[in-house]
């Protein structure tokens, strides 16, 4: 298939793996920030192609994984109203809240529908004028512009039964939080789709302030291996900088239209990250002009504080300081069928990827 096969060419992959082996003369720890990268790395078996002195650790870039339990609890609380339809991305269905998941609520008879975009949810709002449509918006700079367009469309169409429950977040503050924690990282495999929107320049503060290299990376095996090679070279030469490997999608300035939509509709707010706690200015909340679409303002719900399983180390895994196999629950109490921590729920979560793909 065009645009896929070229990037999965085995000969090219083997050549890249070989060059990495030849260039890697130190010990390296690289963090892939994006959940899409985590899934791709394991799905293609990339770790089995790398020498032992290159370690890949997963970061906080799976939107489902970093979404707090209280967010699911709120969505579940909304679903208990008979006049509410929850329209959600499929990934959120199985995430356990403190009392139920959306999947369980659907089995109980709640009207919960999977959508592929906010605009799909808006379509449902149009067709059901006597219902309130709640759209739990999660994701980073990649999905947030889509939500922004949805809100603007709802505004223009005077739709008054559509509400956003926002847990949208932005990536750089979380990356900075990790660096500040002094997790030992020699380079970031930076999220390609986030950067397609924001531009690669958004990561410049990482080499400038913290002396750590960044390569904005695509999602195919050749992309990932080429980026690892670029990071190895940066470390070898001690010249950290932001480079773009994913040139077919990313520029330094990014998608200016998407950025302006985002800015017009959202403003930064402090946000709660699972595993990190509160990170200042890392969330996105609707601006005053669009406040009427804010579910939490229009229909306030409360969620009880939730105690996580004390043995779950999702927080440390999301910060890159531990791997899933170091968790006492991994493959024992915690599995894709019975996820205890968020990293096991999403296809892009590191525990889920390790469980499904990794040969011990």
């Amino acid at each position, binding site marked *: 298939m065009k645009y896929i096969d070229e990037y*999965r060419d085995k000969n090219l992959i*083997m050549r890249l793996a070989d060059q990495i082996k030849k260039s890697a003369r130190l010990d390296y720890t690289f963090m892939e920030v994006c959940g899409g990268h985590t899934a791709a790395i394991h*799905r*293609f*078996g990339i770790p089995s*192609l790398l020498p032992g002195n290159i370690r890949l650790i997963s970061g906080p870039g799976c939107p489902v994984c970093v979404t707090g339990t209280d967010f699911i609890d709120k969505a579940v609380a909304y679903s208990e109203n008979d006049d509410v339809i929850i329209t959600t*991305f499929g990934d959120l269905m199985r995430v356990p809240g403190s009392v139920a998941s959306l999947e369980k609520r659907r089995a109980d008879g709640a009207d919960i529908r999977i959508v592929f*975009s906010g605009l799909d949810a808006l379509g449902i709002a149009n067709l059901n004028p006597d219902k309130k449509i709640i759209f739990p918006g999660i994701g980073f700079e990649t999905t947030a512009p889509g939500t922004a367009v949805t809100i603007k469309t709802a505004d223009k169409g005077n739709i008054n039964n559509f509400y956003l429950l926002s847990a949208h977040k932005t990536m750089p503050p979380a990356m900075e939080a990790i660096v500040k924690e002094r997790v030992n990282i020699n380079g970031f495999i930076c999220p390609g789709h986030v950067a397609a929107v924001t531009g690669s320049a958004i990561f410049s503060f990482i080499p400038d302030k913290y002396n750590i290299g960044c390569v904005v990376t695509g999602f195919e095996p050749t992309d990932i291996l080429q980026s690892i090679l670029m990071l190895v070279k940066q470390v070898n030469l001690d010249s950290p900088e932001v480079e773009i490997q994913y040139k077919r999608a990313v520029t330094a300035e990014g998608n200016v239209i998407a950025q302006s939509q985002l800015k017009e509709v959202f403003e930064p707010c402090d946000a709660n990250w699972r595993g990190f706690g509160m990170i200042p200015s890392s969330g996105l909340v609707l601006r005053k002009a669009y406040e009427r679409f804010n579910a939490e303002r229009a229909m306030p719900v409360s969620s009880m504080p939730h105690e996580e399983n004390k043995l779950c180390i999702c927080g440390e895994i999301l910060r890159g300081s531990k791997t899933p196999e170091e968790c006492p629950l991994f493959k024992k109490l915690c599995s894709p069928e019975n996820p205890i921590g968020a990293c096991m729920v999403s296809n892009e979560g590191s525990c889920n990827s390790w469980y*499904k793909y990794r*040969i011990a």
Partner: protein
Amino acid sequence: MDEIVTLNHGSGGRKTHELISKVFAKKFRLPEPLTDSAVLKFTGNKLAFTTDSYVVDPLFFPGGNIGKLAICGTVNDLAVSGARPMYISASFIIEEGFPLKELIAIADSMSGEAVKAGVRIVTGDTKVVGKGKCDRLFITTSGTGILDPEREHISTGSNIRQGDKLIVNGPLGNHSIAVLGARNNLSFSTPVTSDCASLNHLIAGVLEKCSEVHFMRDLTRGGLAAVLNELAGMTGWGIAVDEVSVPVSDPVRGACEMFGFDPLYLANEGKILMVVSSGSDAEVLDIMRADPLGKDSAIIGEIIPDKKNLVVLDTSAGGKRILDMPSGVQLPRIC
């Protein structure tokens, strides 16, 4: 006759008889008078017996409908056990208000598929339930078939040996993607048609010429990955699969890339996995490829010794990873 099915059709009275005689008995060519059980003739030592219920949304999809599915599924369950499918029963649970025209179309395609597969629908039942008590139409089919005792090992895989080759009869995932595309609530369309087909003739062609078939299973729910994991668990062997060799059509791959699905986990309704001895793989492949339902057959891997009974995938990228048992249905991803 009324245009829709009503609760009256399930009352056991005149309307019920009208529905049975004008739709099912007519389409399935049931001999009069209709009795409470079919009396079947069969010869041979062993009888294979299977049953399956069918629920699908939407009922009609590119490449088939729930009725065709119900016949193919039961025929295939018998055929992969090494049996020759003979007789089928069909039970219908119909939601009140169901359009009769659609019911006739479904019975028609069941009848057509039964003729194609060389099986007879000999008994059945009809129930009508109130609005909202079932999702339009559910069908349960059971089937019997004659099993040559020499083929009894096929369903358990007890003859499987190290080095045995794995063969599938064509590209995977078409049924899942066709049904997904046909669902109205998704703003997504696809040219993919379901692979829904009865495979008993294809299988008979192989079994007649080759006695070295060690295992067969149809790749329905859970797809190839589920069957391979069941097989590894059942036999105590490991399995090595070469991802590049697994046939997947471009439109299915494209849809999978978009939704974050893995085609190896998608349901099929006309695909089987066959495990054959390493010496007979070329012959079996030739026989399968000569049949239109097996023209894209491919060898995709082999049986290997492995203490943990793992299914290991040699990825298209040249790496290795586990191909695990699927957990739950695949859900579309965010980005």
